[in-house]
């Protein structure tokens, strides 16, 4: 086993060597512009792009014509939300989204709010899921779009997408989902799941960075978008710019592998994730899983370690790459807004660690990480005045803390 160990697969993933192999010829001998209609270099590139479109569409149950290439999920989110807001401005100006969305969605909605859109931010229950009744009540005749992420990037919590889509359809509202963490990890079918727009990122599923896609439904209903990038009219006029052929080939290959291997891979990762959780819980008291275990990506574990601060824990296991919801790891000194929205107390948000398992993690690595976490938490608790007080029976909530 080699260190450092990478267990931060929600942040990004390494390129699968098979993906790299598929991409390589398109950097050199097959370098054509997919928009060049009059020579073989262009045809070759166009053909590669078409193949990738089919591979992507096939993973999500879509038609190849419904795939729009972008630079990544952030751009896809922007295009979907701003594009709908502009295109459907005459129909309404109300957008519904959720407090635990990625910033690419939240900040896009904030941007639109400054320009006359009304936005409703749904809260989440302690398990991280939205309340469908609350969603139904939030819909008004002015509502044009509901945007709810498929799987949360911090907690891995899966939203009831299919039901949300059904509600949206019944009320004649478009439904966008940020599928960054979900596509390639859990089954996604835009028809069965009633999704009208779906953001996809390549680098979260063993593809390259800098390429993503937006699924835009063409039938029942036909969704139209106002482009946010104008130019040569690529991608049915929705997103201009010369296609990133190597990236697109990589995204396609990554989707193809996920489609073939997802079922098996998710079982393996769920087993490893559960092993990590069991090992930790067997050795430590005062640990809490953040978010639903039932409605969750198979490869995610988000845990708080009571009385221990997250960044100091990461420092103690520095040969393991994970991430934390602690303020000390953010530039703002605010702990994770996702955990806060779920009602996780600040002190436990500061104590949280996100483990993201992936394709190249082994059982040996998981066992090693569990042991190192247990060891480090024990050491840091010896250093923690809060642990000492808790063991003395002091109720930490009753203490009059000197707050700044």
């Amino acid at each position, binding site marked *: 086993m080699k260190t450092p160990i990478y267990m931060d697969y929600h942040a990004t993933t390494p390129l699968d060597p098979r993906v790299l192999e598929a991409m390589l010829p398109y950097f050199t001998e097959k370098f054509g512009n997919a928009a060049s209609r009059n020579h073989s270099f262009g045809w070759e590139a166009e053909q590669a792009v078409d193949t990738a479109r089919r591979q992507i569409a096939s993973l999500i149950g879509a038609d190849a014509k419904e795939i729009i290439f972008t630079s990544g999920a952030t751009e896809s989110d922007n295009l979907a939300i701003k594009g709908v807001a502009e295109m459907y401005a005459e129909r309404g100006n109300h957008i519904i989204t959720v407090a635990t969305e990625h910033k690419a969605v939240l900040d896009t909605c904030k941007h639109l709010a400054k320009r006359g859109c009304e936005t409703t931010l749904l809260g989440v229950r302690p398990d991280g899921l939205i309340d469908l009744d609350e969603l139904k009540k939030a819909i008004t005749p002015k509502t044009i779009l509901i945007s709810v992420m498929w799987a949360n990037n911090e907690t891995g919590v899966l939203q009831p997408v299919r039901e949300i889509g059904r509600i949206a359809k019944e009320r004649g509202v478009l439904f966008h989902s940020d599928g960054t963490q979900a596509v390639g990890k859990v089954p996604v079918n835009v028809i069965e799941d009633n999704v009208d727009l779906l953001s996809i990122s390549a680098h979260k599923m063993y593809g390259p960075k800098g390429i993503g896609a937006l699924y835009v439904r063409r039938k029942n209903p036909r969704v139209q978008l106002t482009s946010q990038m104008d130019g040569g009219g690529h991608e049915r006029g929705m997103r201009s710019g010369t296609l990133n052929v190597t990236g697109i080939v990589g995204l396609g290959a990554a989707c193809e592998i996920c489609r073939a291997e997802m079922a098996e891979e998710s079982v393996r990762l769920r087993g490893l994730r559960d092993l990590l959780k069991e090992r930790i819980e067997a050795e430590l008291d005062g640990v809490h899983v953040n978010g639903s275990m039932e409605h969750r990506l198979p490869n995610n574990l988000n845990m708080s370690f009571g009385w*221990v601060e997250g960044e*100091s824990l990461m*420092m103690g296991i520095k040969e393991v790459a994970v991430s934390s919801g602690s303020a000390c790891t953010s*530039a703002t*000194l605010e702990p994770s807004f996702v955990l806060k929205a779920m009602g996780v107390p*600040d002190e436990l948000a500061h104590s949280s660690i996100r483990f993201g398992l992936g394709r190249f993690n082994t059982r040996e690595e998981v066992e090693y990480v569990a042991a190192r976490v247990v060891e480090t938490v024990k050491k840091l608790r010896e250093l923690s*005045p*809060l642990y000492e007080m808790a063991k003395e029976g002091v109720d930490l909530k009753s203490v009059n803390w*000197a707050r700044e």
Partner: protein
Amino acid sequence: MAYSEKVLDHYSNPRNVGSLDKKDPAVGTGMVGAPECGDVMKLQIKVNDETGVIEEAKFKTFGCGSAIAASSLATEWVKGKSIDEALKIRNVDIVNELSLPPIKIHCSVLAEDAIKAAIEDYKKKRNGKR
């Protein structure tokens, strides 16, 4: 974020970890910060009543690596100093010694506050005794 060598050293080998008997009249206890802010430091000193010199210092800290290092360093620095000398320790000294980045300056402020709170507690006890 990369940590300085000194922060890493204090984190890996924290000096003077532990607790002193807070009921001991020669012991002053300072507890600063709050759990929901992600930092709590407890710093204790044991003062020689005759000489006014801090003979022992202990700490426990809930916080990031820089907070642990700042409080560990604070115990090292106050040990052997008189109360008046210890009160002269400034957070900027800690920032410089540990090469703390701007975002971690609050850790040094907290350590300075912990020293002051411990000394204040000791003085209060001592005056109460008289």
